[in-house]
């Protein structure tokens, strides 16, 4: 691109390789903190942590270690019921991650499939799916969540379902657009001429060609899902105690924010750190899979 029309095949190959390599480096840089955090959260039961549910009403609101009155017993202090904050932040991460990842999986599978079908088949199927997407995107998310959770009750499954319902339309819209441009490419016509069925074309040929986009979207959506889950838990619509999630911890500590800021601050930091890392990772992935930077043959 930089060399204009005169670049040779060798140069372009070198160029792509350089882009790939630097892309890999930033991918590692962005992915490493998340990987470490993931390991920490998964290995939580093996770590010498306090029981996150154990209450100690005499040891309520102990400040973290670096403040006066902090003890090594509770490095990040304790909450309003005397539970160890470090253990709660780490255990809270488990559920937060599980919910976010499950929601992204469900949402991306449905959204991507519907997007590919709409983009490939066009016609009335496309019209219906697109209008549903529009309607979905027009609904305020909190309102929808309240309506569903109030009518269906609070449970993990309902929570994941709500988050998936919130996110699928985004995938469907983006993937439909990509499929629309992909289906006009001659190789799809060639496949049809070769007798391949629409299902085969969609799954074996269109999906791999848009896989990068799905990956980028899904990564960015994990961050959005964590935020959404936190928001719902904060409003009392999320996980049910004694289950712990970061949003739930924020909600619980809100009343004490003037006397014991650490109860809400540490889960808040956790949310910020994870969402930011995920967004940076998503950006690094996008740099690699951006359809606008992709060169077709």
């Amino acid at each position, binding site marked *: 691109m930089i060399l204009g029309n005169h670049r040779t095949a060798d140069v372009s190959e070198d160029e792509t390789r350089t882009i790939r390599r630097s892309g890999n480096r930033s991918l590692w840089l962005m992915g490493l903190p998340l990987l470490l955090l993931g390991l920490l959260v998964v290995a939580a039961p093996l770590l010498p942590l306090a029981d996150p549910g154990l209450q100690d009403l005499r040891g309520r609101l102990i400040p973290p270690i670096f403040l006066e009155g902090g003890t090594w017993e509770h490095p990040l202090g304790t909450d309003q019921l005397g539970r160890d904050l470090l253990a709660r932040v780490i255990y809270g991460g488990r559920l937060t991650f599980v919910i976010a990842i499950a929601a992204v999986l469900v949402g991306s599978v449905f959204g991507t499939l519907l997007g590919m079908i709409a983009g490939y088949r066009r016609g009335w199927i496309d019209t219906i799916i697109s209008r549903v997407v529009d309607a979905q995107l027009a609904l305020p998310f909190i309102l929808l969540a309240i309506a569903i959770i109030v009518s269906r009750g609070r449970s993990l499954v309902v929570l994941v379902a709500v988050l998936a319902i919130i996110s699928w339309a985004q995938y469907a819209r983006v993937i439909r657009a990509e499929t629309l441009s992909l289906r006009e490419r001659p190789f799809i016509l060639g496949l049809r*001429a070769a007798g*391949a069925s629409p299902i085969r074309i969609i799954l074996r040929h269109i999906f791999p*060609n848009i896989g990068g986009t799905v990956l980028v979207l899904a990564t960015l959506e994990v961050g959005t899902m964590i935020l959404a889950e936190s928001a719902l838990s904060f409003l009392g619509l999320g996980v049910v105690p004694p289950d712990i999630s970061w949003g739930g911890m924020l909600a619980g500590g809100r009343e004490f924010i003037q006397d014991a800021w650490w109860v809400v601050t540490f889960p808040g930091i956790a949310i910020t750190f994870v969402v930011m890392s995920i967004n940076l990772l998503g950006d690094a992935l996008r740099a690699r899979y951006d359809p606008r930077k992709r060169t077709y043959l």
Partner: protein
Amino acid sequence: MDPLLSVRSLRVEATSSVGTIVAVDRFDLDIHPGDVIGLIGESGSGKTTAVRSLLGLTERNVRIAEGSICFQGEQVLGDGKNHLDRLRGRHVGMVFQNASSSLNPLLKIKTQMRQVLRVNRPDQRAAAHQRRIDEVISRMGFHDPKRVLRSYPHQLSGGMRQRAAIAIAIVSEPEIVIADESTSALDVTTQAEVMELVRELATDMGHSLIYVTHDLLLAAEVCTRMAVMYGGEIVEEGPTASVIAYPKHPYTLGLLRSVPMWAKKAPLVGIDGTPPRVIPGFIGCRFASRCAHAVGACSDADVEWTQHRDSGFRCIQPEGAPLHTGNG
């Protein structure tokens, strides 16, 4: 001998916001085993629409308004039937204009060939598929066929990609191969090579080839028969030699006169004007407005097809004189 594929009075209409045009009309074509038919015409003459319609591969706004298609004596289109999808891949293979983009960039050539076999020859075992792939690729004139099989499309040159696309189109042994401007994107030497290869492969196995092109010279070299299209109709059809030496339709003559190689004694002549927009209800010869010999009768009624032995034309004032008059 019965024709392999027989198309009768095919009429294809394309609808857009501007209105409906007739892209293909009164299209009759018989393809016999071993035929190499050149479908000649300028841009917009309906040749690509016609062959894509044969496979049911038209755009959404294009529909087959009437006509019937028989394959090996069995009707696949017409009388309310549309089984064109049964022909695709299994009986009719297609090579497209731009091979570079007619291959999936993410799959190796080997994988793409195997997939075509899996779809169209599900009864055979994987080992038989592999043998067939090796056989086809070794006949494509590659320096290192094994390496081509292992390659992704971007690792091959333009000519190699085109040959790979042809290999994919013929790997499931379709009785008819349609090459739609398949070589127009290649340079002249590679063009001739690739076309010769396609002709060989098709006819050696007793298969037929429809070669869609605007390149008269190339078509004349490889085709046994020629069908000249104008304004969505076939205006002249016959054995290559007789079409070139004794063109009957003024449009064919005009085309031949615009090829430098054949017109070297006579002055090079173009055809004035542009092709008409054929809308439903169009009556008369489509070429009349550009034809030097046109008389009133040309535009008064549709011109009927005149068949004389193995060639035919659609004109009421056929050219009697051969192209090479005098010392030509």
